[in-house]
């Protein structure tokens, strides 16, 4: 913990400014100058009386603040603005049939199905997820069907995704996957049905599931796994009140605090056992993520040549018992050459 002395300044990176409240009582405001993570515009901000009081430390010789508090406020603003950019650049209203049962009708959907996602670990491409309607998805469906037959209505939603893996010596497969012949089918705009949860013997502990889930097809072992995606809420975050549903999590970087955008995933085997590795997902800026990785002696997942691409989410794969972070994942979305996007 280190305190920094603040100058009266509206132009410094961090400073204070004088004001009076509605009762004409004088007070100091915390001021910040920040750069927008996307537009690179300069923004000047003043915190209100109450928030400033929480951060500023008034002493006889001047006004101070904890450097960590100031850094948190700056990073939180940047992460939220980055998330705002993601939200407002890619979406349109749904058409009939776009959304599954129980999904609110005013839910937005991607502008285009002509997209694919690249997943990076240790700066290496480890997985590519194709929209289910793209020609690249067709051979993947065929590979899955050779072993599992028509296990699902793969295209039940036009935004569904199918992906497969690439392993590198310095970017091994995400545990517990054992080989690159594993295929991930994502069924989106649909919560996992009770029938599906029963198929994988998932206990009903009261989690709120997100409106997508994945089935992992291991075409070598012939086994399936369910990846259930779980919202972070009081039941998963408050150990004192809900010890049975609490999900332990490692330290994470400052992330966008928009509602519902911090979540977990668990992988279930067909016998109901769960993998030792959990995922935690969040959205933040590349600068914040890089700093976090450096601090934790982890490798920032995105190669330098792709850092300015559309990184829409990061994931940490961690051991649920030790909280050791085993992988840092970064997801980038791209348009295909067939389609327009952004």
């Amino acid at each position, binding site marked *: 913990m280190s305190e920094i002395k603040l100058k009266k300044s509206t132009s410094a990176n961090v400073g204070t400014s004088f004001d009076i409240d*509605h009762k004409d009582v004088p007070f100091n405001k915390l001021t910040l100058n920040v750069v927008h993570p996307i537009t690179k*515009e300069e923004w000047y901000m003043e915190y209100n009386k109450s928030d400033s009081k929480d951060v500023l430390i008034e002493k006889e010789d001047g006004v101070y603040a904890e450097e960590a508090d100031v850094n948190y406020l700056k990073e939180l603003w940047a992460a939220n603005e980055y998330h705002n950019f993601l939200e407002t650049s890619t979406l349109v209203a749904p058409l009939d049939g776009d959304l599954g049962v129980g999904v609110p009708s005013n839910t*937005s959907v991607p502008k285009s199905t002509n997209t694919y996602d690249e997943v990076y670990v240790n700066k290496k491409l480890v997985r590519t997820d194709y929209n289910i309607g793209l020609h690249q998805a067709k051979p993947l469906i065929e590979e899955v069907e050779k072993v599992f037959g028509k296990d699902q209505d793969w295209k039940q939603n036009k935004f569904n995704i199918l992906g497969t893996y690439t392993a590198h010596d310095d970017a091994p497969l995400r545990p517990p996957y054992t080989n690159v012949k594993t295929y991930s089918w994502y069924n989106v705009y649909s919560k996992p049905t009770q029938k599906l949860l029963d198929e994988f013997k998932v206990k009903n502990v009261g989690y709120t599931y997100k*409106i997508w889930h994945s089935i992992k097809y291991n075409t070598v072992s012939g086994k399936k796994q369910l990846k259930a995606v779980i919202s972070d809420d009081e039941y998963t975050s408050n150990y004192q009140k809900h010890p049975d549903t609490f999900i332990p999590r490692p330290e994470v970087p400052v992330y966008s605090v928009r509602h519902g955008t911090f979540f977990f995933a668990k992988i279930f085997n067909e016998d109901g056992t769960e993998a030792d590795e959990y995922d935690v997902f969040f959205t933040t800026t590349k600068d914040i993520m890089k700093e976090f990785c450096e601090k934790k002696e982890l490798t920032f997942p995105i190669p330098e040549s792709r850092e300015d691409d559309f990184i829409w989410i990061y994931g940490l794969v961690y051991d649920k018992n030790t909280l050791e972070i085993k992988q840092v994942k970064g997801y980038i979305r791209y348009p295909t050459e067939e389609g327009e996007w952004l």
Partner: protein
Amino acid sequence: MATPSSGAISLNEMHVEAGGSSGSECSINDSDIRLIANKSSGASASWNDYYDRAADFGITMTVGDGTHSTTVDYTTTTKRFRGFHKTSPAGTDHSTNPNGIGSINDNQDADYLGNYVIEFFATIGTQGVSNYSLRLVIESNGAITNNDTQFKSVVVNGTTFNRSDASFSQNPNADDKSSMWTWTISGTVPTSSSGSYPPFGVSGASNAITFRRSR
């Protein structure tokens, strides 16, 4: 036109700013003159108390309502807006729709908000979530100073919001310059245009808004 900020000041200048006719009879203890300096009847006052004072800026808003749903990682959030939004600048988190929502009968006053146009004055929050924001955005043409010459408080539909309780931000060097005040409000964002979303009334209601510099 606000009263002078220094130098000679006459009772007539105070009276005119308070809404009286120039040259008409008045006294320093008249309620309209006291109001611009926030003085009670019979209170002591100095001439300095009447420097840089302005009459209230009153607006009538026909309340609008709108939603905007977004999804990034298949996670959808629906934001609800209630109040007035002139247009919908792309890429801002107060984007609603291209035609905006609601209307106001006056959007500019020489003595308030740097004489800039009000672009957005509405609540903004995620449906079903506790806590939301009341946001005021003006189209500025450079940096403005966040002090009582912009406004000291604003009364919306009977509820007072003090400027000092709002966070403030601006981007004076951007192509699309704006200045913005944001208040945090406790309460749950409704899921329909008829649901309660204070301080504004339901969609279509007529709400009084008063910007004040003296109190």
